[in-house]
């Protein structure tokens, strides 16, 4: 009796081990859209610096040339953009291009000197574009970062 159960358990474990790798593979990719691969967070400091942090999924990368930033509906201007050191990537058609993987911290210097009508809020559009290593690329995507209250800044 005990021997039958041992054999029987081995068969069950074998069947489950055969099935699980495929389960993990298909579930991971299908649920993701492009936004899931590039998560953005933002922090605004009192020294008028906006820190944008992109967390890039290990499957993917972002093009350095794909970044653009714009202040919306305000006289505040982006006076300087600090990008971290990029990685070299060879595209067969585009040649050597600069990309980012993992976590990317971008710092924008904001110039408030031209603001005529003070405001309590600030909205900034951040665009990015990237691809997945498996050979698909995503449309340029846009996030709008909004700060509802800016005590002492504007």
């Amino acid at each position, binding site marked *: 009796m005990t021997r039958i159960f041992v054999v*029987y358990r081995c068969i069950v474990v074998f069947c489950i081990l055969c099935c699980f790798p495929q389960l993990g593979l*298909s579930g991971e990719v299908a649920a*993701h859209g492009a936004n899931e691969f590039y998560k953005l967070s933002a922090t605004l400091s009192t020294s008028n610096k906006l820190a944008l942090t992109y967390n890039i999924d290990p499957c993917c990368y972002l093009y350095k040339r794909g970044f653009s930033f714009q202040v919306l509906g305000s006289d505040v201007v982006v006076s300087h953009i600090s990008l971290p050191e990029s990685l070299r990537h060879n595209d067969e058609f585009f040649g050597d291009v600069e990309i980012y993987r993992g976590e990317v911290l971008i710092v924008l210097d904001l110039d408030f000197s031209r603001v005529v009508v003070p405001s309590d809020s600030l909205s900034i559009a951040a665009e990015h574009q990237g691809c997945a290593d498996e050979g698909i690329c995503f449309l340029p995507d846009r996030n709008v970062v909004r700060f509802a209250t800016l005590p002492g800044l504007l």
Partner: protein
Amino acid sequence: MNNNGLKTLARRSLITCVVIGSVVAGILMSSSRPEIDELALKGAQQAQFQDLNGKWQQIASWSGSYRIVNFWATWCPPCIEEIPLFVGLQAEYADRNITFIGIAVDEVARVRGFASDNKINYPILIGSGDALRVSEILGNQRSGLPFTVFLGPSGDLIDMHSGAVPEAKIREFADKIR
């Protein structure tokens, strides 16, 4: 083996069958093609896009022929990598009822220049976010490019591929039509 032993064995066998059955069903369901609404499929093929001459066209404009519809963009390296293959196969399959259709998710001027430089010999339509949405209706779950669908003469969805299409897959599709 006594009665209790047999009952326990039977119960465990039943539970095991249910567990394994669920796992196998999950695998089959997750790896099969996504469910696509037939009405939405037809609607997507009637979405209007301008061609390189500014004329409004739709995927359904080429009804009656087998269609290989490729969503692409000039800013997408894997997309432009496969264009020469499509150009070559369109010429090779000139005597077959197959039409390649490129739908560029891009700016008109860039597409026009690229099509001219690369001597694209099949219809090119141009869209933006609306074109991407059409691709999503046709099964582009990851909203990435390139994405290619294989349609029958009446618009039935035969196959789809995310990423650059292997040449063998297109040839296999074409060989069934001969």
